[in-house]
């Protein structure tokens, strides 16, 4: 007879001294954990609910400008700083952490319409409706700045031209910057005259953006509803696409620099491949009024938009609908938005003279997160992802409280789109097969492409 029975001595399974850690034994046998799927589902549901409970995206407002904020610029070299220009010609440098003005740059006589900082973060370029381009030195942030707010700075240079400027952007790699207004001008830090000027048509340039990957590629949008691509090595613009409505702002995807997203007047954003402007890759729709500004997260996975409907939305770069909407009672028309350089925050500037700081993930925990907490958050995140299609979880995750006006406007838009679709279907049903062709929205909004 051979016999063995389970025998556990106390010493093997308990700690020796009270200072030791408790001993842990694992057995992942599914039979020991019955109803595993039900437990997981309940956890996913709880995670979704907790996410909603902790969703407090608004961090604070930065108050100081006397008129509507018209433009903003990130300082690529300094995470906490952000520049903002207002309609009364005031430019300020803000410290986001303390929500205070660090420095002011007075001088513009009219509205500031464009702001940009060089990649090394030393020089700030501003332009405005007073037909001037101004270069400023950016103060290097030191400790004492925090205790002496209200410091002001003198411009390095002032260049005056005949026409008002609408936009400015600095090259990612180099000393050049481009301004947009009556035409596109290319400037160097050290020259008082533009090195180069481009013109295609007579309409005003609304926004200018350099490609983050290729320093010689430039995209602009103009009030003739066009998006134009320029190559600085050539003497004339490369190509142009005309949409049905005008594009207010452009942003390049920093991780996939052949893609750009256009914030359009018709409430949608359109993602294009700049080599193939004829068709949009994606249409991002959710806003109910014109989209005024757009900025990509440095990760390239999502972008933020600000709209005339007084909301800020965050879209995935490849998704048709926004994942987040931010609004407050006091926030008016949003004219400019920026993603912070660490992809953690969103800053919006609006008509009510305030800059607002939001979290990019509404329920993210601020401050130090312990490793255990972090693992818990990761686990919750993956649970939500796994059960996102289940109606109970989906309902909680998707729900956003909207202001009544926006809710109603959204509903109205959906009804209108539905009605148009229905009409189209009926028209198709009552005409010869193949005669009526429905083009998808991403093709429908393009008028023509000009090479």
């Amino acid at each position, binding site marked *: *007879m*051979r*016999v*063995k*029975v*389970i*025998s*556990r*001595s*106390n010493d093997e*399974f*308990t700690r020796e001294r009270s200072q030791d850690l*408790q*001993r*842990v*034994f*694992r*057995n*992942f*046998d*599914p*039979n*020991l*954990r*019955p*109803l*595993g*799927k*039900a*437990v*997981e*589902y*309940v*956890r996913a549901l*709880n995670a979704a609910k907790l996410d909603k409970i902790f969703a407090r995206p608004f961090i604070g407002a930065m108050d100081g400008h006397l008129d509507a904020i018209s433009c903003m610029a990130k300082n690529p070299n300094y995470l906490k700083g952000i520049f903002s220009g207002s309609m009364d010609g005031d430019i300020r440098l803000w410290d986001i952490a303390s929500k205070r003005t660090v420095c002011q740059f007075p001088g513009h006589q009219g509205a500031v319409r464009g702001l940009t900082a060089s990649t090394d973060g030393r020089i700030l370029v501003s332009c405005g409706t007073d037909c001037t381009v101004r270069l400023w030195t950016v103060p290097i942030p030191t400790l004492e700045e925090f205790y002496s707010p209200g410091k002001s700075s003198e411009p390095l240079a002032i260049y005056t031209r005949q026409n008002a400027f609408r936009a400015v952007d600095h090259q990612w790699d180099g000393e050049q910057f481009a301004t947009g207004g009556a035409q596109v001008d290319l400037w160097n830090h050290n020259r008082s005259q533009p090195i180069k000027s481009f013109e295609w048509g007579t309409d005003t340039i609304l926004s200018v953006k350099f490609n983050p990957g290729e320093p010689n590629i430039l995209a602009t949008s103009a009030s003739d509803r066009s998006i134009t691509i320029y190559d600085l090595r050539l003497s004339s613009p490369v190509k142009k696409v005309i949409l049905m409505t005008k594009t207010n702002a452009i942003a390049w995807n920093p991780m996939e620099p052949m893609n750009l997203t256009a914030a359009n007047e018709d409430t949608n954003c359109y993602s294009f491949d700049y080599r193939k402007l004829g068709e949009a890759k994606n249409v991002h729709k959710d806003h109910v009024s014109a989209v005024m500004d757009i900025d990509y997260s440095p990760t390239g996975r999502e972008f933020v938009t600000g709209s005339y409907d007084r909301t800020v939305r965050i879209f995935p770069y490849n998704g048709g609908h926004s994942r987040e909407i931010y609004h407050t009672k006091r926030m008016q028309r949003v004219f400019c938005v920026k993603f912070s350089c660490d992809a953690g925050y969103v800053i919006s500037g609006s008509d009510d003279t305030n800059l607002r700081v939001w979290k990019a993930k509404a329920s993210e925990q601020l401050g130090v997160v312990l490793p255990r907490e972090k693992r818990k958050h990761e686990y919750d995140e993956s649970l939500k992802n*796994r*059960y996102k*299609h*289940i109606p109970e979880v989906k309902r909680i995750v998707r729900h956003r409280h909207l202001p009544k006006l926006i809710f109603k406007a959204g509903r109205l838009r959906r009804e209108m789109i539905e009605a148009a679709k229905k009409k189209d279907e009926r028209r198709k049903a009552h005409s010869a097969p193949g005669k009526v062709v429905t083009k998808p929205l991403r093709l429908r909004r393009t008028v023509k492409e000009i090479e």
Partner: protein
Amino acid sequence: MADDLEAKVKKYLRGEGANLEVLNDKKLKTQLAIREDLYGKSAKAAADVEKWLMPSEGGYLEAEGIEKTWNITQESIAREVDILSSKNQHDIILPDLGPYTVDFTSSGRYMAIAGRKGHLAVVDLKNMSLVKEIQVRETVRDVVFLHNELFYAAAQKKYPYIYNQDGTELHCLKEHGPVRKLQFLKNHFLLASINKIGHLHYQDVTAGQIVANFRTACRSDAMRVNPFNGVVSLGHSVGTVTMWKPTSSAPLVKMLCHHGPISALAFHSNGHLMATAGRDRKIKIWDLRKYDTLQTLPGHAISLDFSQKGLLAYGNGSSLRILRNNSDSQSYERYMSHSFLKGYQINKVLFRPYEDVLGIGHSMGWSSILAPGSGEPNFDSWVANPFETSKQRREKEVKSLLDKLPPDTIMLNPSKIGSFKPPRKKEKPTKEEREAEIEAAVTAVKSTEVKKKTKGRNKPSRRAKKRQESIAMAKRPFLEQQMEEYNSGQKRKISEEVQLPPSLQRFAKRKVV
């Protein structure tokens, strides 16, 4: 070796993967394929690390030569095993207060015992010490631990009561009435009871509300929870077994198992096997996936229990037997047997979790014997820890409350949770479909050849008439159906025939006189 690993991987895969072939969505297919691949990898990783994570091997009892395992006595086993294990063999003789029933905590460290004549006690089996004993001075029919060793419920003469470890009465659950059997659903924190008049009650022990109260229409002596899905099964005196969930007042399953009252029930931990014993001197083992008998054994059983490793114990009178699943013939065969002195009446047999021990409550007290190979050798500290400290216990209580499942997660197949129903078929056919159906029926009639009849009956006009009639006959069921639908729609409208409250009568349609 490779076979062994494969079996282990299969265990961790928790069932079949999704069938990706039927999917049309390419993107979804790729995503799911990646996911399935990940599941496979994680199962393999879990199987690989088993040899380090789970060092202990299970117990066994093997015969040598001509001897048979069922002839090996407890005394001879005791001679072979170590002192620590031989302590697990004991008989406690309390002849005055029996028969006794027993229950173990999920970690197997504590045992609650209840004597029919009011003796309640909690015993710490690790230190072999009595935690507390009380005398309630009335009949006690059943005892069950709640989520941990601090609380237990006892089914007494008129009502069940909840006591804490010190023997303080915390609650009297009057709604349950004179309860026969009690069961506790650990994941759902539900206390289920069946009383003398056949009412099944579910009570949430965290909030205290009665979750469900069903009349089961028949007296039952056996009640067990299927640990796999939380479904409560009742064995009735007419020989049926019914399965219940708290969200439906009709039983999920009703099966006739024996020609006579059912005396005992037990479930395998993987949820596929059920054992029933009836007064018709039969013990049956059922496959719960097919609801079919796998095996019928002769014998009486007052109490049945499956161990964690799948041994089946049944006791009757003063003798008990342990059966083992023979992997070759896929059937339960004799493994061990044990008998007490004449005059002992076994009341309850229960395997102790994570130990090779069988606890027995009988008319003369309680006993425990060694059953090598019955318990899971490796415990998980986060599931059930026999060496739990009070701090760990407190933490686990909070964790398990956070993971408490709502009552509607109890269902026959719990793997359905988190899955989608296939898209529902259209209820009503569209107009075109209906017309097409009629058309098909008419053409079928037209295409049939008409028999040549005798002379006088074979006029062309008659033939045409006959054809018309047959077409009308073919159309008729469809038209009738349409008519019916139309009428039922009409009925829904408010008419004067329907008795309305006087305040609403003026809105009703009036008949034109």
